[in-house]
């Protein structure tokens, strides 16, 4: 990496963190002035926490941009050279799991679910369910890249299945599933996995913009299905208990 590239990376990362934290701080200060009137100590604590989190996000995004993005491309090129589509799907499954496992916002969501349910839905259960869902669908996405399947053939049946699962799933899991779909496409997936997808389709001689697109769509679909599926299992297991009482 050249010096100019590093400076450029530093600048754009700092800018995106600033843009992300600014609306939050403005909203908080507005509320503080208009309604909250918290003691200065509390405000200072919240703001220093926001500063700490921003510094953390800056380093995190920088690390992802410097390390994981270029390496993801290299992985993609190697995966595209694999002899069989099922091998690509296998690598996709592995990468999908470990990437989501490392996605910060997924962990934050899982912790919030644990807290809001007073521990009855454990954070680790949510985390593993989301990771398994994404793993499966990144595997499918790699197959799609290898075979050139149109995206609609996957997302339309996928969302039809979501509609089918909606009434069957335990109510609490529906909101969690939808939120998980939002956070699963976090900064790691959006850079690292996308780079793998682009690298693979480039290695296969396809237009990376066409076949790489849609990876994010499938990652967003994945937790909807896996978490609602979990909600269905939970409801199933609870049913005999309900009928007894």
């Amino acid at each position, binding site marked *: 990496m050249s010096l100019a590239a590093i400076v450029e990376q530093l600048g754009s990362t700092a800018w995106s963190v600033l843009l992300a934290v600014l609306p939050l701080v403005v909203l908080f200060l507005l509320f503080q002035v208009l309604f909250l009137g918290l003691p200065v100590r509390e405000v200072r*604590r919240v703001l220093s926490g926001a500063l700490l*989190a*921003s510094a953390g996000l800056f380093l995190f995004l920088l690390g992802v941009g410097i390390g994981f993005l270029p*390496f993801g491309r290299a992985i993609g090129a190697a995966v595209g050279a694999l002899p069989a589509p099922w091998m690509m799907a296998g690598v996709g499954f592995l990468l999908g799991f470990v990437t989501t496992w*490392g996605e910060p916002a997924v962990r934050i969501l899982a912790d919030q679910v644990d807290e809001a349910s007073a521990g009855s839905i454990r954070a680790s259960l949510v985390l593993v369910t989301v990771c398994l869902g994404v793993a499966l669908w990144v595997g499918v996405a790699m197959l799609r890249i290898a075979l050139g399947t149109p995206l609609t053939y996957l*997302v339309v049946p996928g969302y039809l299945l979501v509609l089918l699962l909606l009434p069957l799933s335990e109510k609490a899991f529906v909101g969690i599933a939808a939120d998980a779909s939002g956070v699963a496409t976090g900064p790691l997936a959006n850079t690292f996995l996308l780079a793998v997808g682009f690298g693979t389709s480039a290695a296969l001689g396809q237009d990376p913009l066409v076949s790489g697109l849609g990876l994010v769509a499938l990652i967003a679909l994945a937790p909807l299905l896996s978490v609602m599926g979990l909600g269905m299992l939970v409801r199933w297991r609870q049913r005999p208990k309900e009928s007894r009482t």
Partner: protein
Amino acid sequence: MLALLRRQLPEVLRALAPLLGIAVLLQLTLVQAPARLFVQLLIGALLAGAGMLLLFAGVEMGILPMGRFIGAALPSKRSLRLIVAVGFAMGLATTLAEPDVLVLAHQVELVSDGRFRAAPLALVIASGVGGFAALALLRVVFGFPLRLLFAVAYALLLGLTFLAPTESIALAYDAGSVTTGVLTTPVLLAITLGLSSVIARRSAIEDGFGLLGFGSVGAMLAVLLLGILA
């Protein structure tokens, strides 16, 4: 502060170790990238780990309380307009802040042969997110059934898919990723949870979630509609 960081350290190590492990394994077997790229990966992982440590500590110390304070103050004003305004403003501002959204808007501009300009497009997508975020907060207040709302939203999504030109479909389904800011996630979650915990008869676990998901669907629907109109 140091204690807070030390408490987060095991979580950060657990989060990143498998990813790094698989990357090293792939490097040794399949990828065999040039040493420079691999060193870059290691430096990046170190930075990302340190960043995640500060991020989690900061979220616990400041970002989550920020959302909780706002969420608890929202219903006490008994003003629906305020709740709608906060939901809309948060959805709008956080989407516009996401770098992805401009990239997306540029791609829609290309698909529409330049009939739509990127900047107003970004605003339309962000409004889609804002509108659905406001709807999600109203849902908590009035207790609309969550499953029904999502059923309508996803049915609409599927219906519009059949009307939209092929080029815009992939863009639309990718657009869900514009609502995934790492910092906004805890704030929006805490606002919804705060709101649902203050309003009587709402259970946090049943009513505190879904806002991020609604925002994503809002973005997807906005892009599909633009594709159809283009």
